[in-house]
């Protein structure tokens, strides 16, 4: 039997993409994940720009995870210039990141992915679901409020600067967030319960989970790159352990881990982070996971929503912790002198590791750069996931397959706008 499954426009994902699947003689003959998000050539126009521009520019790659771009780039710059920021500043940056995690995860859980489990087209289509959506709005708002206090606004906040922040918040200001964070914590524990009560397709196969790992904390801004298949590399080395390849049907580059002569897809994002770092979660959250019957590692890639709920709770918990012990730093930033050099830095964006590499010249201008967003790292993985799913359900109707494939893709919370901004292969 031959079938063609075509989704022209994926909805409830960030950016523009579609998918074409061909089944010939009961075998999947073609999967084309189409990314027709128009390219924006970020890396090219960064070249020759003063290093200060990088933070503001790369943020514009993605409106949903601008902080991730700011974090990867600011740390890369500081690595190049040999700057170490005070602990209080790193903590504030972590707080900023929790704001983005909360916002982005809440959006995905309640607005993008959630409706799939209820068979509704959006979060407001159904009266009952709308109540859940309201919780989602409340959580999102809490995340956004963190971003606003620290960075002026939720999308493309303006406060991050090489060496620290342009301005750090007053203790009073930041403490005003606590009441809503307490509420958010309750909401997010409920979210874990709710998410794990949903019904999932069985998408389980042998894959490789990749995330950062840090000795003392759940990874965000620092650590080493770790994989479930034994990789444990510095950020810089990890960058060289992966390879990107272009497929002719897509504007996005795919990437995989180089081993011998083959390049195999890997998986980044909340599931990988939880799987590789669950020991770093606070006991309260571990308990909630146990109660909800979440067994680790999470091997079903459709269960992204569960991992997100866990991380949502973690981010809220972490925000409360940081705010409670916050002391206003003496100076919002450390002084430094720009120096030529190059560095790679990786941070954990809501969707997974985000790799930046820069080289800066003597005038403090960007000589060259490479950016590998999480979604482009996951693209190969998504395709394989779909492939496996189809093989197991090859006899189902085209309509069914179409819906399910859409769901699979969505469970990755792909950020297609990001995925077009991909790297420079060494000339």
């Amino acid at each position: 039997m031959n079938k063609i499954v075509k989704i022209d426009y994926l909805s409830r994902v960030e950016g523009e993409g579609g998918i074409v699947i061909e089944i010939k003689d009961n075998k999947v003959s073609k999967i084309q994940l189409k990314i027709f998000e128009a390219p924006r050539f970020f890396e090219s126009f960064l070249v020759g720009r003063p290093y200060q521009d990088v933070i503001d520019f790369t943020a514009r790659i993605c409106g949903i995870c601008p902080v991730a771009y700011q974090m990867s780039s600011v740390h890369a710059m500081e690595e190049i210039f040999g700057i170490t920021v005070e602990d209080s500043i790193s903590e504030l940056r972590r707080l900023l990141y929790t704001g983005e995690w909360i916002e982005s995860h809440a959006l995905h859980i309640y607005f993008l992915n959630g409706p799939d489990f209820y068979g509704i087209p959006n979060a407001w289509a159904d009266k009952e679901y709308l109540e859940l959506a309201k919780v989602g709005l409340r959580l999102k708002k809490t995340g956004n409020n963190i971003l606003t206090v620290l960075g002026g606004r939720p999308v493309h906040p303006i406060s991050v600067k090489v060496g620290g922040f342009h301005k750090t918040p007053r203790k009073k200001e930041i403490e005003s967030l606590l009441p809503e964070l307490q509420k958010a914590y309750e909401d997010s524990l409920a979210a874990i319960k709710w998410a794990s009560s949903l019904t999932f397709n069985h998408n389980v196969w042998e894959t490789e989970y990749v995330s950062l790992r840090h000795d003392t904390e759940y990874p965000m801004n620092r650590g080493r790159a770790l994989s479930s298949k034994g990789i444990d590399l510095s950020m810089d080395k990890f960058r060289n352990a992966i390879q990107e390849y272009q497929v002719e049907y897509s504007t996005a580059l795919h990437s995989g881990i180089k081993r011998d002569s083959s390049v195999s897809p890997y998986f980044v994002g909340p599931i990988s982070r939880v799987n590789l770092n669950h020991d770093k979660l606070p006991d309260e959250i571990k308990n909630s996971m146990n109660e909800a019957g979440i067994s680790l590692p999470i091997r079903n890639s459709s269960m992204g929503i569960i991992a997100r709920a866990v991380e949502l709770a973690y981010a809220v918990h972490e925000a409360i912790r940081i705010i409670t012990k916050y002391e206003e730093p003496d100076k919002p930033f450390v002084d430094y002198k720009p120096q030529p050099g190059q560095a790679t830095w990786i941070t954990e964006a809501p969707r997974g590791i985000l790799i930046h590499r820069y080289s800066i010249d003597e005038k403090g201008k960007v000589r060259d750069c490479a950016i590998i967003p999480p979604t482009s790292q996951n693209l190969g993985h998504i395709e394989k996931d779909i492939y496996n799913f189809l093989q197991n359900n090859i006899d189902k109707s085209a309509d069914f397959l179409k819906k399910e494939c859409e769901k699979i893709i969505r469970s990755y919370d792909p950020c297609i706008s990001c995925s077009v901004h991909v790297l420079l292969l060494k000339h």
Partner: protein
Amino acid sequence: MKKPRIGVFKFTSCDGCQLSILNMEDEILDILSVFNIAYFREATDDPLRGQFDISLVEGSISTNWQKKEIVDIRERSRLIITIGACATSGGLQALRNWARLQSYKKYVYPSPDAIEALSTSTPISEHVHVDYELWGCPINKNALSETLVSFLINKKPGIPRYSLCMDCKQKGIPCILVSKAEPCLGPVTITGCGVLCPSFGKPCYGCFGPKDDANIDSILKIFQNMGLTQKDSVLLLDKMNTYAYRKARIDIRQ
């Protein structure tokens, strides 16, 4: 009464302005109670169908198919409102307008020929008639709210078009250009962001684009008097609204 239909469309952009709609957490339920969000890919599966009372358009035009699609959207829309720097002035990606496309492609993609893109990124208004423009990278949600309120009660949105400095002074923020000699774009930039950067002690980098009659040549001269090279001072304008600032510079010469 039938609810007015809103469509949200996206071209070349980061999705941040669309997200700003979803970030109106306090208003979104009000919006849903008076408007029918009939097309909004990022949030709902509803297919593209029929006519729209308001089309909110994000993103710039940078490929051939987008050129066609925006014409289709125009035909379906009573009002087109552009949201954000990309749609209103070409966005950061308009920097390609002043570069060589092929070298750009080569830089980013190993097989550049597979990449379909125009050599320019241009605002929506270069392609179809635009009824109202919301500036900002990203837009300010109060401005969007004012625009929707204005639509409902039938008036022009009351969004000021004077300089950022006006609000900077009104908020009592010390001027960083005058008191620290840091190159702030406030004097040539429209207000609307809530004076974010100066209130964080950072010079404005122009994400809201040029104000009415922005005197670009004069501000460049001021920057140069502060010690910046001609080239570096122009770089300050070549950001998210590069297209609009360069255009303002030409307009004022006439």
